[in-house]
């Protein structure tokens, strides 16, 4: 499992290559497994940011436990049984803490009893939901996405049905309390959803365990009848039985991989009285255990804490025998309340309240439920297509709204419990009996349903006239045509239905697709004209990595390679085994005459992935004709052309006003289109016509401290004037430095040096005259040789300044390689253009001087962080372009309490290498360095980790963090507190300020920590930077681990403070400074150095 790859769940272009069209068009009538799978996968990815409103985000602690340091949380578990019921209440309440806090376990312990009490109230909600949430996890886990708690079990059995069936038991508990109630403004729209949901419990009784699921049926044998509304009370019993079951099962289902559970934790029926916290957990266990092995995962985890004494041999016979001697009545009452799980505490309080909007649209589910059926064909029908066909013929029974994957059928309508249908197999006229058996009643908000909703949504988008390009929908009729640049910009939307802390929402982001009017062949022609000698290289540079769309279908492909040896005259093998040339293929199938016979072919290599069922691995290459492929995205050349980009960004960078207007337009188009409404209606969905309005906060302004001056940051979070007026915290005197410039830049170089002299004083920099080296030409070798000889002859050179002409990546790269790797010395490259305008020279010189000071090890400014013995670490990953798929991790750690000294490291990894290996090296080095400087180790470590997608959060939590903790063991008696925060920049959430009937951008420091947040984690959205143009794009922060016990307020404010400390920008930036530093460093190393920089530079910000 490589956690290196940064995933952008929403925007990743490369993913958009599959057959969306097909998925959509098939869905209602039949979903063939592929499509279904694709749809589901996609949903799961898409949902990544999402949460469930009604589903308080309490994740069961179990899977997390292993990393909990011996914290107080455990104490609970060891509590002797007698405490059981009496304390049950409080404990169970505390229990969520353990789970949720990932590491907050200790908090649970120290928490005053008051809070459990308070929590008790909202208890009912979460628990059941947890069960459900789980239910859907197994499929995820199979994919290794690790979203589920139990993802330790990578090879989960595909008994999805069973898992789901089981989760329903918990259903009755599921309903009532809107979780966030107390916290923030709830949209009225959201409320009806809850109300409706209350109806579900009764319905749930119908639940019929999947026949194939042995676990479930065993539970039934044990007497836990799902139809009984046993409420919360039954839970402990469930646990007990589950324990037993597990034991019993051990011999039966060894493949599941939870044998250890059975062995170590064979809870017999009476088990409920065991350790108090287990009462609570038992509860969970019950809900969960049947779900799938997931439930059991807590088993092995919990077991170490159990006193070995009480272990009773697994009552195998009993479990299998049927009537279980489970003391139902005794347990029912007390546990009831404990079932409670309450939403994660993620709301902060600091700062001023502000009304903000977000690009989330509340969705109401009017259906009472979605019904899941198991379909069996007797005699068995192997071919899926035939199964689909047969089901299709029975639309009169199932209705038109069908989601079917070949054996599991979802309908928004209730059929009889068992329905038998007849069909005839066309091949042999065999009569087939189709048995449709209801297995589950899902609440309409259920995670399982969201994929269907998203399929519906895609249809709706098409109905309102939008075209699918890649993964998003665009409106060609409003295309902006930039004739000059031969491209079109299609406005559109990236949409996704997701579940957040606040409920079910439609997330809409305004998106633009840049499409080019030219085929790849046309562009090749242009390239050939420009540089016939480097034609192939230039083409590779231009096209590899680009996304193309083909002339004959709407698919997009990423170009991975160009096959120069091939041409359309070559032939390939069709699915039926016959050979055909490309020319014939396109003529025959699409009536396209290939005009250019001598063109190379483009290669797309699909990501290897196995088809569902693991039958077949899709590999190989897809070859495309340049003539029939059209480029998408902004051309590389244009990106570098400031003026051209301006033409483009004018259209792409929409203001908040335009953004909201576009969204409202879409909502209106949907809500006024009967066909679209009808489509939504099929699954009982109703999209609100208004975007979400809620209350956020603006965090307090920070005081920026220079050497002696300090000031409160302005409302625009910009202190460019102040930093050049007063002395920086510390400045390195520049006694010996060298400026290299080509002859024709001599004048500018001289002026710059003079200007440096003028502006250095106020900043507090002592500056001697530099060694001036005039180069006879501006060739790369000339620079390199001169610098090299200078550095050799004058080993005391503190800084190399190079004035270069034009945008020359090769030269820049050569200079940096020399100065960062071969002959380590801080270096500053200056484009002559930036210093050619006399009226700007002063401010440019000031900026450069500050930057040079940083590179030398000076310190510019800081903010106060009221935490002692703190180390803040930033981590980001960059993908190296030169070495395919190799990625670079940048690591930056603070070394002092002012957070002004930074230690940085870089590691390179191959695709399958775990980032953590490199990370460990970096962390140990940073800790040692910290010790050298402070004569102690940091007590608290806060890690900001960029580049982790939602799908990888679990991996981080379960794999990276334990490794990090292990790292600390290197030092004797060293157990620092750790907070691990994932930083996500590329998210689709947009925040708007709202005032005077107008939408704008929220001020820097705006934080939103509820409603649109993720139900599974403590997370928040923070907009730290000030926005000059465009929309308010916040950064998403997820606290994955927090033994430092930072409260939501601390997390938010610390993060905001860190956004003040990027010295290349006298203002706040989008991400915490260490992340930005790490990014810069990784970028430099991956893009230009292609190797690790010299260790001598590690304690300076040489990479700025």
């Amino acid at each position, binding site marked *: 499992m490589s956690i290196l790859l940064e995933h952008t769940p929403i925007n990743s272009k490369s993913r958009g290559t599959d057959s969306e069209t097909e998925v959509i068009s098939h869905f209602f009538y039949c979903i063939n497994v592929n499509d279904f799978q694709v749809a589901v996968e996609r949903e799961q990815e898409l949902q990544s940011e999402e949460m469930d409103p009604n589903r308080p985000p309490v994740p069961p602690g179990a899977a997390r436990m292993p990393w909990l340091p011996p914290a107080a949380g455990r104490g609970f578990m060891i509590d002797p049984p007698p405490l059981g019921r009496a304390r049950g209440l409080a404990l169970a309440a505390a229990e969520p803490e353990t789970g949720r806090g990932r590491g907050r376990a200790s908090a649970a312990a120290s928490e005053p009893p008051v809070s459990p009490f308070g929590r008790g109230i909202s208890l009912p909600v979460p628990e059941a939901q947890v069960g459900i949430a789980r239910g859907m996890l197994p499929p995820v886990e199979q994919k290794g996405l690790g979203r589920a708690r139990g993802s330790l079990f990578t090879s989960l059995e595909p008994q999805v049905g069973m898992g789901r069936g089981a989760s329903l038991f918990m259903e009755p508990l599921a309903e009532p309390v809107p979780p966030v109630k107390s916290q923030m403004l709830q949209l009225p729209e959201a409320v009806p959803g809850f109300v409706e949901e209350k109806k579900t419990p009764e319905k749930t009784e119908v639940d019929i365990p999947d026949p194939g699921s042995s676990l479930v049926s065993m539970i039934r044998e044990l007497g836990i009848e799902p139809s009984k509304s046993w409420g919360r009370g039954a839970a402990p019993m469930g646990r007990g039985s589950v324990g037993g079951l597990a034991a019993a099962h051990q011999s039966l289902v060894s493949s599941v991989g939870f044998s250890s559970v059975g062995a170590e934790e064979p809870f017999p029926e009476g088990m409920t009285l065991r350790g108090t916290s287990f009462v609570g957990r038992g509860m969970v266990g019950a809900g969960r255990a049947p779900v799938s092995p997931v439930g059991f995962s807590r088993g092995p985890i919990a077991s170490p804490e159990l006193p070995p004494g009480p272990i009773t041999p697994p009552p195998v016979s009993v479990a299998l025998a049927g009537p279980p001697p489970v003391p139902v009545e005794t347990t029912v009452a007390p546990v009831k309340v404990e079932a409670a799980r309450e939403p994660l505490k993620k709301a902060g309080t600091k700062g001023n309240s502000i009304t903000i909007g977000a690009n989330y649209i509340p969705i109401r589910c009017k259906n009472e439920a979605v019904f899941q059926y198991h379909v069996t064909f007797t005699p068995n029908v192997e071919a899926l297509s035939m199964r689909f066909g047969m089901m299709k013929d029975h639309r009169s029974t199932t209705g*038109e709204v069908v989601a079917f994957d070949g054996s599991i059928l979802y309908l928004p309508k209730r059929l009889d419990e068992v329905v038998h249908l007849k069909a005839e197999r066309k091949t042999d006229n065999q009569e087939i009996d189709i048995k449709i058996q209801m297995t589950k009643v899902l609440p309409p908000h259920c995670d399982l349903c969201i994929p269907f909703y998203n399929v519906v949504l895609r249809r709706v988008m098409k109905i309102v006239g939008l*075209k699918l390009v890649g993964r998003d929908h665009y409106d060609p009729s409003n295309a902006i045509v930039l004739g000059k640049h031969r491209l079109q910009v299609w406005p559109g939307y990236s949409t996704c239905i997701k579940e957040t802390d606040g409920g079910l929402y439609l997330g809409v982001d305004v998106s633009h697709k840049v499409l080019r009017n030219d085929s790849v062949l046309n562009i090749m022609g242009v390239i050939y004209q420009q540089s016939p000698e480097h034609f192939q290289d230039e083409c590779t540079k231009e096209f590899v990595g680009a996304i193309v769309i083909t002339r004959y279908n709407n698919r997009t492909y990423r170009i991975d390679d160009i096959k120069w040896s091939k041409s359309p005259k070559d032939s390939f093998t069709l699915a039926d085994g016959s050979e055909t040339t490309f020319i014939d293929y396109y003529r025959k199938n699409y009536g396209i005459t290939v005009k250019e016979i001598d063109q190379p072919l483009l290669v797309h290599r699909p990501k290897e992935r196995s088809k569902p069922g693991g039958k077949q691995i899709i590999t190989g290459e897809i070859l495309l004709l340049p003539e029939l492929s059209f480029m998408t995205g902004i051309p590389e050349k244009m990106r570098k052309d400031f003026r051209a980009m301006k033409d483009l960004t004018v259209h792409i960078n929409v203001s908040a006003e335009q953004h909201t207007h576009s969204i409202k337009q879409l909502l209106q188009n949907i809500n006024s289109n009967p066909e679209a409404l009808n489509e939504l209606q099929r699954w009982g969905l109703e999209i609100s016509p208004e975007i979400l309005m809620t209350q956020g906060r603006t965090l307090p302004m920070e005081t920026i401290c220079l050497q002696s001056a300090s000031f409160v940051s302005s409302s625009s979070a910009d202190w460019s004037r102040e930093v050049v007026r007063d002395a920086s915290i510390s400045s390195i005197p520049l006694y010996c430095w060298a400026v290299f410039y080509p002859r024709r830049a001599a004048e500018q170089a001289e002026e710059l040096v003079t200007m440096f002299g003028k502006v250095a004083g106020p900043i507090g920099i002592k500056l001697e005259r530099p060694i001036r080296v005039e180069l006879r030409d501006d060739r790369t070798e000339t620079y390199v040789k001169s610098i090299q000889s200078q550095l050799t002859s004058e080993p005391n050179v503190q800084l190399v300044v190079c004035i270069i002409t034009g945008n020359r990546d090769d030269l820049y790269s050569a200079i940096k390689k020399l100065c960062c790797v071969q002959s380590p010395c801080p270096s500053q490259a200056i484009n002559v253009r930036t210093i050619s305008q006399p009226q700007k020279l002063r401010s440019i010189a000031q900026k450069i001087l500050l930057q040079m000071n940083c590179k030398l090890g000076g310190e510019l400014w800081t903010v106060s962080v*009221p*935490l002692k013995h703190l180390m803040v670490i930033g981590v980001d990953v960059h993908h190296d372009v030169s070495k395919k798929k190799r990625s670079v991790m940048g690591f930056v750690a603070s070394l002092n309490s002012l957070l002004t000294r930074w230690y940085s490291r870089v590691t390179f990894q191959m695709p399958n290498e775990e980032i953590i290996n490199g990370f460990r090296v970096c962390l140990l080095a940073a800790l040692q360095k910290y010790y050298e400087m402070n004569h102690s180790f940091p007590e608290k470590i806060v890690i900001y980790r960029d580049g982790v997608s939602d799908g990888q959060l679990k991996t981080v939590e379960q794999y990276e963090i334990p490794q990090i903790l292990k790292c600390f063991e290197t030092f004797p008696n060293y157990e620092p507190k750790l907070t691990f925060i994932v930083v996500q920049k590329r998210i689709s959430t947009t925040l708007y300020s709202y005032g005077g009937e107008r939408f704008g951008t929220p001020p820097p420091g705006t934080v939103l920590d509820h409603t649109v947040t993720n139900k599974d984690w403590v997370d928040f959205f923070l907009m730290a930077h000030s926005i000059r143009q465009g929309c308010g794009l916040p950064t998403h922060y997820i606290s994955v681990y927090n033994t430092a016990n930072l409260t939501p307020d601390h997390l938010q404010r610390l993060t905001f403070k860190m956004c003040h400390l990027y010295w290349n920008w006298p203002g706040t930036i989008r991400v915490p400074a260490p992340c930005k530093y790490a990014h810069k460093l990784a970028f430099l190393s991956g893009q230009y150095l292609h190797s690790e920089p010299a260790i001598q530079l590690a304690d300076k910000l040489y990479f700025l």
Partner: protein
Amino acid sequence: MCRNGSDRMAALFSPPLYLQRYQFVIEYVKRFIPRKVIDLGCADCGLLRKLKFHRNAIEVLAGVDIDCAALRERVNALAPLTIDYLQPSPRPLTIELYQGSVTEREPCTQGFDLVTCMELIEHLQLWEVEGFSNVVFGYMNPCAVIISTPNVEFNPLLPGLRGFRNKDHKFEWTRAEFQTWALGVCMEYGYSVEFTGVGVAPGQNRDVGFCTQIAVFQRDAGVSNGPVNNAVQMEPTVYRLLYRVVYPSLCDNNIFQRTLVCQVLYRAESLKREFELGEQSMQSDLTACAHSLPPDVVAGSTVVYRHRSHVFVPLQHVWTDPKVQALCGNIHRLRQALMDDSRVQLDTDRDAIILPDEGEEEEDEEETGECEEGNLTPSPVIDNSEEDWETEIG
């Protein structure tokens, strides 16, 4: 519908029979270049999807089926592709889908050049066939009709087949029966017919004929039920229009204009760039002294020139672009088209395109913030100095 029997026959024919039927129609369209084609019993629009690519000159493509769900199923596949917007076709194309019965008279179905009716009639009751003939040949009265139906004589060669090829078939004809019906139709409505088919029997069983028999009808010259046509203009429609899409094409004036202007501007811009590059090299060579010639010298000239802060690109130069030529046909039309377009600025003689000379003034966005001088309003001071998170953490 037409694909239903294909399971059984998949092994027998390659490519599958239904594809062969489609191919037959495609070949026909290629030869006879109809402009309006309607497919009766189009089911999931398989044939229409094929024809959409093999358009030749088709401008209207319609489909009719009685099964609304089947029609809807793949309807999105008929929508224009991204590329259709990027490079609009020179010809228009409209695709329409109707739900309705082929035994009903629907005014919209009149005036087609070609009616295809693949594997449809055998789904009608025998007594309905006459009504069908009347509607298709008498009422719709297209130039040509292609009708295919199973050849029952072939059935013994299909392994394991009992009865008809599909449960929904009401009859399956022998070649003689089919031909009798077809010739009868010709007599009555003034058509001539040719018989052929697809799906050749394997081995020596050739005498059973094609698996699918096909009749291609041509309306006899001069015979047209013109009067009927006019008379029914007022008739109410009986079909339900389920889907209609108009493809972007250069026949749409706006699209044409836009495409042309884009091409012209692009061409003009690249000419201007070449010119500027030339200018620069001249400057650096310090050889050219008069790079900005007075306008009277160059008026009506065919070279790019600069006047004040504008660059003039003669239309003659732009015209050399083959794409522009393809769009406009002649330079006068080009001039005409550009004259009234606000996106293009022509000089007074309408001989050159004027492009602004975006000289050196480049604004660095990042610097703009600096203009707000003295904007240092002291913000509400919040004193953080007293804070101690340590105690809060506990």
